[in-house]
C-alpha cells in the first residue's frame, strides 16, 4: 500500500501537498487501493468544505478604482 503513495509530513518545506495521480485510473483510486490516499483526500475535502459556499476570493471593480 505504501508504494502507491506515501505523503510525508514535511510538506511545509518540500511542498508535497498533492500527489501525482494523473496516470492512475480513477477506478484504482476507489476502494481498497485508494485507501492509502485517504489522508490526502480527507485534507483536500476538508478544505473544500471549510471554505463554505459561496467560495472566498471576492473583489469589486468599485474597490479597484478607489
Amino acid at each position, binding site marked *: 500500500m505504501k508504494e502507491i503513495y506515501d505523503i510525508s509530513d514535511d510538506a511545509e518545506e518540500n511542498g508535497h501537498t498533492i500527489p501525482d495521480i494523473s496516470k492512475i485510473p480513477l477506478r484504482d483510486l476507489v476502494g481498497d487501493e485508494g485507501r492509502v490516499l485517504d489522508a490526502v483526500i480527507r485534507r483536500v475535502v476538508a478544505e473544500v468544505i471549510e*471554505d463554505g459556499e459561496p467560495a472566498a476570493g471576492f*473583489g*469589486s471593480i468599485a474597490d479597484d478604482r478607489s
Partner: protein
Amino acid sequence: MASALPAPSATHFADLSRGYGGPVAVDILIDTQLNKHLLLIAHIAEAWPGPRQERDAALAILDEARVRNPQYARELLTHPMVGAWATRTIRRLRGAAEDWEQLGPDLGQLSALAAVAASRSQVDADLVIPARRHAVLLPTLGMAIADHPVGPVRVQVRSGEIALGDGVSAIRVPPVSTADTPGWYGVSQLTAEPTPARLGLEDLNPYRDLFHVRPASRVKTEEVDRWRQLFAEAWHLLTGHATDRAAEIACGLHCVVPLVPDRPGEGRSATARHAFGAFGMTPPASAVELLVAMVHEFQHSKLNAIQDLVPLFTRDDGNTYFAPWRADPRPAGALLQGVYAFLAVADVANRLRGVPHLRESAEKQFAIIREQLRPAVEPLRELSTLTSWGRRFVAGLEGSIARLDATDIPSASVNHAKRSLHLNRTAWLERNGSGA
C-alpha cells in the same frame, strides 16, 4: 505508482511570487488542479450513496478517454466548472445525503463528464444522466432540454457524436456545440486573436453560483455580442501592451460567469477558491474594465492554485489588517490575495500609460495602487505564520513592488495618490480602530 507532485522549481516559484509566471508556471498550476480534481472525484465515487452501476460505467469511460486522448481529458477535468461541480457535490454529500432530488443530478454529472470526454476521445459510450428541472448539462458544451423535469435521460456517444433521449425526441448535440438548436443551448464563446484566446460565457451551468453576487441567467444575444466586442478590444490591449500576462491568461483563464449587479451600474468581479480559471463579472462598461478584471481575478486564481501546491501559511494568525482597497479589516490570507491581484493591476496600468487615449487614467490608477501596495505588504513580511515558501513568496512580491516604486511618474499623480491613501487610512481607522 504515484509520487508526490514535484514542488515548483526555484525559477518558476520566483516568477510566480513576483506576480508573473508565464504559461509554463501556469501549466504547473493546471497540473495541480488536475490532481486535485481527480482526488475530489475519487472522494465522490467513494462516498457514492446509491447504486454503483452508473458510477462504475462513468469511471470506466472516463479512464478509457484519459488513455485515448489525455490532452483533452486534462483540459476537461481541469475546467473550472468541474471544480465547481465537485466541490458543490461534496458539500451536498456531507450535508444532505438523503436529498436524492438534489444529489442525484449532482452525482449524475459524473456520467455527463464521461460522455463529453468520450465524445472527444473516440470512445463509444452508453450512459444515463438524471435531468434537473428539464435540463441535462454537458459540462463545457451546453445544456439539453429533456421531455421530463426529472429522471434519467439516456445518452449515447458514437463516433464523437452525442445524442440524448430516445427515438424521435432524441437531441443531437450540434457539431459546433456553441450553436443553439431545438432542445439545445450551447455555451457561448468569447474569442480573440492574434494570440488565440477563448473564454466560455457560463450562463447555463447550475454550478456557476460561486460568488457573493447572483449569476445571470441565459444572456441575450445582443449582450453576448457586447461581451464579445469588449473581450476582443481588451485582448487587443493586453496582447499589445502586456504580452506576458496575455500569454498566461490565454493558458489558464477559461470562463467568465456573468453576474447581476446589486444596483444598476455597479461593477463587481469575483474569483472562487475551487474554480481555477473562472471569474465572475457584472457586464463590463468598457474594454479596460474587462481587461483589469481578467488580470485581477486571474491573479486570485493563480494564488489559490499556488496554495494548493505549496503551503504559504502554517495557520491563520487570527489578526486582521489594513487593506487600502477595502473598507473592512482583512485576515492575512486575504491581504496577500489583495496584494497579489493589485500588484498585477498596477503593472498593467503602468504599461497602459503608453496608450495615448488611456495615458491619464492609467497613470492615475498606477500611482494610486502603487502607493497602496507598500503599506499592504509590510505586515505580511512580519508574519510569524509564513512558511519558508510564504517568506520567499512575500520577498518576491516586495521585489516587484520595489521595481514599480522606481518608476518615474509626474509628481502631481504621486501627490494625489499619497493624499488618497492618507484619506483611506484615516477613514479606515475611524471605522475600524487601530487594533483591528
